[in-house]
């Protein structure tokens, strides 16, 4: 079902969206170059074309250790940025440097830390959903008006943990928000082979969870839907579900030869719907903002990315001895 029309965000907030989305793309484009130069170990994933979702999920949330729990999916680098992770530490993570939030123990967007209330996601798809329900339960038990939010891809909806997590959330009526990013693909598998019910928001009906479906390439739509869902959850109206319709603008990972299975004409259509281009048009055509303001944002982003890479490159690697440390916590938090 279509979401309620979100009220129009201020120009300031619109510029804010533009800044974060641009920063997200800036960081990812730079990281992709570094990967291609062989400067990043492991494999590399980008969320290009899904920046409106990554940023739209995070902006409505309260930040910091006492803020809202956010467990983003690997496409959502922007969520980490908005929720507080400094860009240079994300580069450090990709590089496996000591300054990464995992001190090199984990890679790509397996990023997290108490200070941002971002748990460190695992590879196993949908595993973070029950954890998010648990965090929401904790807030509910303590009577705190905090919410727990997680995002995941369309293929994750096939996993048992998606089902168990959503059902428990509904029964316990916890303040959790679930964001499904329907980009039409799970690696090389089209959503049609993933499920017969490709309108993912309809799956929430099995649990009695209110759900909406929005255009995931429309930053305002995503932001508005998430804001409404978060408000509802915070107000004690239980878990909420949002489907964001988008498209994976390339391979599953940087090494994936997606040309072999992805229809190029569809890809072309979607690149016309690029969320950043679209936001620029909205800002300039509809809101008649001076091109200069966007220019300023882009310059700021360039500079921040440059500095971030510089910091990360200057950063050292963890000492080998650290591999032995940290399996167990010594004292309770």
């Amino acid at each position, binding site marked *: 079902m279509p979401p309620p029309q979100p009220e129009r965000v201020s120009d300031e907030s619109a510029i804010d969206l533009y800044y974060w989305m641009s920063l997200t793309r800036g960081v990812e484009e730079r990281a992709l170059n570094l990967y291609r130069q062989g400067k990043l170990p492991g494999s590399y994933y980008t969320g290009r074309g899904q920046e409106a979702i990554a940023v739209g999920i995070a902006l409505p949330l309260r930040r910091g250790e006492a803020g809202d*729990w956010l467990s983003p999916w690997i496409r959502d680098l922007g969520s980490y940025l908005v929720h507080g992770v400094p860009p240079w530490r994300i580069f450090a993570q990709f590089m496996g440097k000591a300054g990464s*939030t*995992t001190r090199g*123990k*984990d890679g790509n967007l*397996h990023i*997290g*830390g*108490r200070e941002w209330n971002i*748990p*460190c996601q*695992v590879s*196993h798809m949908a*595993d*973070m*959903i*029950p*954890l*998010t*329900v*648990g*965090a*929401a*339960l*904790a*807030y*509910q*038990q*303590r009577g705190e008006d905090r919410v*727990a939010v997680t995002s995941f891809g369309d293929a994750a909806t096939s996993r*048992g*943990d998606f089902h*168990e*997590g959503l*059902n*428990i959330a509904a*029964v*316990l009526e916890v303040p959790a928000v679930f964001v499904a990013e329907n980009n039409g693909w799970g690696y090389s598998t089209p959503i049609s082979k993933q499920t017969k019910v490709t309108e993912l928001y309809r799956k929430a009906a099995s649990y009695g969870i209110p759900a909406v479906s929005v255009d995931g390439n429309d930053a305002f739509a995503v932001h508005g839907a998430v804001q409404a869902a978060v408000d509802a959850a915070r107000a004690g109206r239980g878990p909420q579900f949002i489907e964001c319709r988008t498209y994976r603008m390339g391979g599953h990972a940087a090494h994936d030869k997606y040309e072999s299975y992805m229809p190029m004409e569809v890809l072309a259509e979607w690149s016309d719907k690029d969320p950043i281009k679209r936001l620029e048009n909205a800002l300039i055509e509809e809101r008649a903002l001076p091109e200069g303001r966007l220019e300023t944002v882009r310059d700021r982003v360039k500079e921040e990315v440059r500095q971030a890479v510089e910091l990360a490159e200057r950063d050292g690697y963890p000492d080998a001895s650290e591999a032995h440390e*940290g*399996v*167990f*916590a*010594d*004292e*309770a*938090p």
Partner: protein
Amino acid sequence: MPELTYLEAINAALHDEMEADPRVFCMGEDVGRQGGAFGATKGLQQRYGVMRSIDTPVAEAGIAGVAIGAAMAGQRPVAEMQFGDFVSIAFDQLITCAAKMHYRIGWAVPMVMRCPNGGGVGGGPYHSENVEAWFHHHAGLKIVCPATAADAYGLLRASIRDPNPVVFCEHKFLYRREKAEVETGVDADVARIGEARIARSGDDLSIITYAATMQLSLSVADSLAAEGTSADVIDLRTLIPLDIETVLASVRKTGKVLIVHEDNLTGGFGAEIAALVAQRAFEYLDAPVTRVAGLDTPIPFTPVLEREYLPTEEDILRAARDLVAY
């Protein structure tokens, strides 16, 4: 001091920790109004309310994941598997999320997964598993296996207070059979995780064991005494972390080691003990490192077959005599 069964001791430990710390809560199937399939959570919901003793849907992976998330968000969840056997469904959540979170970002996961464990109760292949060896290999989980009512109480409280995920294996056979005077109450003593106990002291032989077979081993030690053989009986109490020093000290003293557990032999925790002893106490060994354990089969249902599966006093006694005679 009240005399409590092992099961009552578990219930008392839950009561006292929930009294002592508002962050502690129980969750699981039928744990609330019903007080659990065995009654381990009896009275908790009545006393602490529905938010602190939560009836969940039948979803073991979900239960584990929710407990992990709640723990990370500052609570102290104690999740119950209706039978330990069903923790197979929570295996992924425990090893993927719980066990690796602190290593990766230093964020502790203080939760307890209570697993009613073990056979000898006519439960058949799906209500009798010993689950400790599903987890001891995997870095990041603590594993606690009490053999006495006092430890059921003290170690459960210690597990709840531990900042790490703990798989708490409570042996169903001991639930009503083990009794002891246990000092309870919010201020009562809390045991220490990672300390083995010399349950009985002797010089001729070291019996290394835990849980239900610890009780068997004690009476075997009596029979041995009658034959003039004195045995050390080491109750490991916690498998991870393992108090290997106490084990090695005993073996260095006796030179002969008999490892006993109910869980099946191959890849059971006894294999790790044997390996450590054969490496670190090699010079002191006067006889082959010997294991007595359950059969390498599922645990069959009908009594005659289940008895065949389970290690018996006779099995332990025979192995002990062979070692002494060696």
